[in-house]
Structures are given as structure tokens and as C-alpha cells.
């Protein structure tokens, strides 16, 4: 039997019992839709996180105290920072930061922006607000791709004079002053008076945007001398993080090498490093690894429903084979070979699952379009963008056809093995 005849036979068999075919399709449709939608959700979140990190500058390298075993980023870094506070060697200082500007030691470094954070209770008028106060130098805005909306950023003069000035994140400004410009106003942080000199643009372009908008920036020296209880060691100011800007994305790796070498020399290290250098790319990679695991997990859970749909196909194909036993007998008497019967039923079940896969795909696009632009992570969060890429589509269609073939083979084999006489006699 030629492929076209096989296809037409399978199609006419399916359309002769539309209700049953439809219900069987439903199982596959739900499975495929669930897989694609959940994976698209996962990928959407992943893309959102990635792009928000990239928005901070792709040629950014960060240096944190503590070796890579005890310190990385996120929570681990915080813990390591505290644990290492008592240890001299686990500290980075302002001198370390400026040493990296040496054009001989680190020619790839364009700018260096050390930061030092401190918690603070900000009060303005009747409103008070808990925020992170970040001690920075003027380079910070450039290095972290942040822009000033109103007023100005922290200047070299402010740093030199330990000035009591702050630049507010857009979220802080909104909470304390509404839509008005607060430049020139006075706020109290931990009881001390500060003058607002500027407000940053919203960093809302990503997953972390909301978080960054809740920060307050002050001169690094001000934070050290007026807000923290860290001691000055050897006349130097300890910092939490040193942001280093590489000249471009390609020189990031080279920058990491140079910075590491320079710090090892200034820290007189012969064994393990007491600092960790992380590129934005590495951060993205490790976050992607984590989110990939989530995407796969979501996909697998949805995959279970696809599996159930596949079992539905197998069930219906077994019923079909039994029902059409006599037809199989007739076809065999007319000269149908085993493989003719085998293909007839396999094509039928593959057709069933492929149709289900295609409808499920269309449905998933529909659900994705409904979710797009919704703030699915809560009020004020980033508008969601689902990502249905070719990989997901091929995977879902491949899996659905594969399921049709896999669960179709057993019923089809049973059909093909029927003895023509028994099949003809079947009532």
C-alpha cells in the first residue's frame, strides 16, 4: 500500500468516529499545551532575569571578598562577608579598588566603582522607609548603567568631603515624595540629616529592577564614617564589592585575569585567593543553570499529562483494533501484508497525536498571548513575556508524534499479527 493510501485510510478511519477521535485528541492537546505553556513561562522568567542582569552592563566584573568556596554571590556572599569580617585577609579596601586602575597591571579596566552598603531607616516628612544605603563613588552610575532622572549623582567632591548628601532610587523617591522632585529636600537616615541631590531613573527594565529602585546612594566615605561601625584598617576603607568595567564584552575574560593577578600581588597571596571575581556572564550562566532546572521540572510535570494522553491513544487504538478485527481479516484476504496493517494503525495513531500536538501548540500560543504583558508576579512587577522558541515547539511536536508512534506500535502489532481466518470469523 502506498503512503498516500495509508494516510487516506487512517484519516477516514479517524473521521468516521469523530467523537472518539476528538476526546482522544483532547488528552494530547492538554498535555502539549501544558508542556509548552509551562516551559514558555519558565523561559520567560529566565529571559527576564537575564535581560535585567545584562541591563546592568555586560562588560561588568564584580569582585567580592572571600574565596569562591565561601563567597559567591547572593546569600552565600552575605554570609561569607559576615564570617570574614573578623579576618583581615577577607577584606577588600578602597585602595584595592583604585589599584586596579593601574594601566600597567590592568590595562583592560576602564573604570572601577567600589561600593559599601549599610541598612538605614529613611524618614521624610511623616513617612519612614527601610532601605539599603549604598556607599558609592561617582563612577558607579556609569559602571552600573544607571542614569540620573533629576538632579545629579554623587560627585568626587562629595566623596572627598564626606558630604551628607543622598541620591534616591526612583522607588524610594516615589514612596517618600510621590511624583514631585525631591531634589533639595532633606531626609533623615538613622537620625542623621541628608540633603537629596538627585533621583535615579527607574531600573524597572528587569526582574531586579524593583529591588534596585529601592536603594539609596550616598558617598562611600559618608557611609563608612557616618553610618557603619567598620574600623578603618591601616587608614583604609573596607568595601563590600568592587565593580570593574571592562573596555568591552570581549575583554571580560582578560580583565578577570588582570584583576585577579593585581589583587594577588597587593594581597601578597601565594595560596588560595581571598576574593572572588565574577563576570556578569558567569552570573547569568549560574542563574540560567538554576532556572533551567526549574524549566525542566515544570516541563516534566506537564509531561506527565502528555504521557496520560499517550496512554489514552493506546487505549483507543486497542479498542479500534478489536472493533475492526473483521476489517483487518478482509484486508488480509484481499492481499494486505503484515506491514500494510501495521502501518495503517501506526499512521492512524501518529496522525491522532500529531493533530493533538498541533492544536495544543496553537492553544499554547493563545495562552501565551493572554499572559503576555500581564504582571503575573504580582502588582508592580515586570510585565511578563512568554518565550515559545523553536526548541520548545520542536520538542512538543516531536514528543507528541513520538508518543503516538510509541503507544501505537503495540496495538498496530496486535492488528498485524492477527490470523486472517480468525479475523474474518470475528463477530
Amino acid at each position, binding site marked *: *500500500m502506498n503512503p498516500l493510501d495509508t494516510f487516506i485510510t487512517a484519516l*477516514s478511519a479517524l473521521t468516521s468516529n469523530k467523537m472518539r477521535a476528538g476526546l482522544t485528541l483532547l488528552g494530547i492537546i492538554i498535555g502539549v499545551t501544558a508542556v509548552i505553556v509551562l516551559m514558555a513561562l519558565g523561559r520567560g522568567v529566565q529571559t527576564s532575569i537575564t535581560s535585567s542582569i545584562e541591563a546592568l552592563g555586560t562588560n561588568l566584573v564584580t569582585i567580592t571578598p572571600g574565596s569562591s568556596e565561601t563567597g559567591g554571590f547572593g546569600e552565600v556572599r552575605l554570609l561569607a562577608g559576615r564570617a570574614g569580617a573578623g579576618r583581615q585577609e577577607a577584606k577588600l579596601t578602597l585602595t584595592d579598588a583604585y589599584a586596579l586602575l593601574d594601566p600597567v597591571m590592568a590595562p583592560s579596566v576602564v573604570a572601577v566603582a567600589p561600593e559599601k552598603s549599610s541598612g538605614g531607616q529613611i524618614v521624610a516628612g511623616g513617612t519612614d522607609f527601610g532601605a539599603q544605603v549604598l556607599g558609592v563613588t561617582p563612577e558607579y552610575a556609569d559602571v552600573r548603567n544607571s542614569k540620573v532622572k533629576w538632579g545629579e549623582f554623587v560627585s568626587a567632591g562629595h566623596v572627598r568631603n564626606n558630604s551628607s548628601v543622598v541620591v534616591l532610587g526612583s522607588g524610594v523617591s516615589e514612596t517618600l515624595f510621590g511624583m514631585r522632585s525631591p531634589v533639595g529636600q532633606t531626609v533623615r537616615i538613622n537620625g542623621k540629616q541628608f540633603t537629596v541631590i538627585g533621583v535615579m531613573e527607574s531600573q524597572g527594565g528587569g526582574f531586579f529592577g524593583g529591588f534596585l529602585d529601592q536603594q539609596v546612594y550616598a558617598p562611600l566615605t559618608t557611609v563608612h564614617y557616618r553610618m557603619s561601625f567598620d574600623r578603618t584598617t591601616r587608614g583604609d576603607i573596607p568595601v563590600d564589592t568592587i565593580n570593574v568595567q571592562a573596555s568591552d564584552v570581549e575583554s571580560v575574560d582578560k580583565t578577570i585575569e588582570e584583576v585577579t593577578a593585581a589583587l594577588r600581588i597587593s594581597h601578597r597571596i601565594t595560596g588560595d585567593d581571598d576574593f572572588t571575581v565574577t563576570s556578569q556572564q558567569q552570573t547569568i550562566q549560574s542563574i540560567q543553570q538554576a532556572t533551567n532546572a526549574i524549566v525542566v521540572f515544570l516541563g516534566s510535570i506537564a509531561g506527565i499529562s502528555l504521557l496520560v494522553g499517550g496512554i489514552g491513544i493506546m487505549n483507543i487504538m486497542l479498542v479500534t483494533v478489536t472493533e475492526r478485527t473483521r476489517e483487518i481479516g478482509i484486508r488480509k484476504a484481499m492481499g494486505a*501484508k503484515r506491514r500494510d496493517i501495521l502501518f495503517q494503525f501506526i499512521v492512524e495513531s501518529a496522525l491522532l497525536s500529531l493533530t493533538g500536538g498541533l492544536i495544543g501548540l496553537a492553544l499554547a500560543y493563545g495562552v501565551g498571548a493572554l499572559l503576555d504583558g500581564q504582571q503575573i508576579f504580582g502588582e508592580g512587577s515586570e510585565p511578563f513575556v512568554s518565550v515559545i522558541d523553536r526548541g520548545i515547539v520542536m520538542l512538543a511536536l516531536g514528543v507528541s508524534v513520538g508518543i503516538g508512534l510509541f503507544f501505537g506500535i503495540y496495538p498496530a502489532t496486535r492488528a498485524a499479527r492477527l490470523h486472517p481466518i480468525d479475523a474474518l470469523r470475528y463477530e
Partner: protein
Amino acid sequence: MARKRRRRKSTADTVVRQVPEDSSMTSRKRARARADRRPAERRSGSAPLLRLEEVTKTYQMGEVEVGALQGVSLEIGKGEMVSIMGPSGSGKSTLMNIIGCLDVPTSGSYFLDERDVGALSDNRLADIRGRQIGFVFQTYNLLPRMSARANVELPLTYTSGRGRRRRAQEALERVGLADRASHKPTELSGGQQQRVGIARALVKEPAIMLADEPTGNLDSRSSEEIMDVLKSLNRDQRLTVIIVTHEEDIAAQTDRVISMLDGKVVRDGRTSRQSR
């Protein structure tokens, strides 16, 4: 005609014919030697179209072995119209299944067109069914989803692809149903359905037409129509027709009646039909 020259032996249950052939060859060797020749060449000799030699068929029914056929030997020549009679359980359906290549003998041999069918694989058997055997069933066995013409085309989908529609239409014309080609089986009378069944058997231009109780489900007028169609196919196209029946008057319309009882041929004789 070959059939008229043939002399039957006095013992009625076998028909033995001398095959002019190199006597040093066994029948199996001869079969293999001839298997590669074109059918026209093979039929030009006086060899019978089909020959059964001591065929037995045993079924396992649970613990019990049932010998459905217990040593059947017979020959049927090209262009014969034969009926096989016998009560139920006599083995006539089993004999029919073996002749139709739906089943293979437990022992003994069956030569169709000088080819030993017992030695063939499932696929080769299917191929022979598809090209050489035309089945007509008591219950018509048409596929209900398909039109009359699609039903007639069915055997051709498994063998050759060329001119299927035209050949199906011609076969329907030969049974007088050209105008019903696009009707579904449910829209046809029993007699018409059986004629579609005959057209389906005919379309492949088979060597043998095997009809299992073709009139069993029909009234006498339709039965007569069906028998007329079968007889005219036998007469006009020298088509070999084998009818399994238990109706005396149907058997009487054929040239030769083979009677079966308890898995054996008990009588094999010519009828008094004087139609040619």
C-alpha cells in the same frame, strides 16, 4: 478444452493426471523449477491449476487435536467450475482456506500454479492472495465506510497502483453495477452487495475465484442473479470458480461436485450440467 479431454479414474475421491515432465524430478523440484516462469507459459501445459497431495490440517482446540482435513488429494484445472459440498464440520471451510492461501496445510502439499504454497512465508501468501485469489464471502464483507468502487479498488491498493479507478469501474460494469459505484454498501440490496463482492474479487483478474456460500444470505431471485454472474464469468473468461455450498441446487449448476465428510473427500463427480 483441457477439461473435456481429461479422463477421471474409476475411484471417485481422487483425480490423478499424468504430468508430462522429466520423470527424474520430484514434484517439489518441478514446482521450484517452474516458479520463475511466466504464468502464461506455465498454464500452456496440461498441468492443473491447483493440486493438493495428501493435505491434512490439524487444529489445537484446547487439549484436543481436531483433524479438520485428513488426507485430501485433488486437482482442479483451469476454467473449471467446481462446488465443494458437505455438512458443517466436514472440513470444507478448512479446505477452502487452504486453497485460498489463508492457511497452510499441517502436512501434505498444495501446489497452486505448480508453486508449493506450503513453503511460503506470510508475506508471499499475502501476495498470492492479492494477485491470484478472488474471495467472495457469504456475508459480503464489504467495508461499510467506503463506496462500492472504493471497496472494489481495495485489493489493488495492496498490489498494483496503476489505473485502479478505471479497473474498478470496469469490474463493476461486468457485474452490472456501474451506476451504483459511488453508493455505500448500506445503500445497496443484498444481491447488489454480493455483486460488489464479486467485482472486488474480479478486479485483480485472479486465477481462482473462491466463493464461500455466496448465496447463503440471499433470496432465490438474488441467488439466481449471483449464480448467473459466476457462471458467465466462468464461461466467458474461463475463470476458475470454486463454490463452497450446502445447497444442492447451487451445486447442480456447477460442472463438478466434490463432497466432503469428516475431513475427507467422499465423492468427486461431474454433474449432468449440459450448459456448454
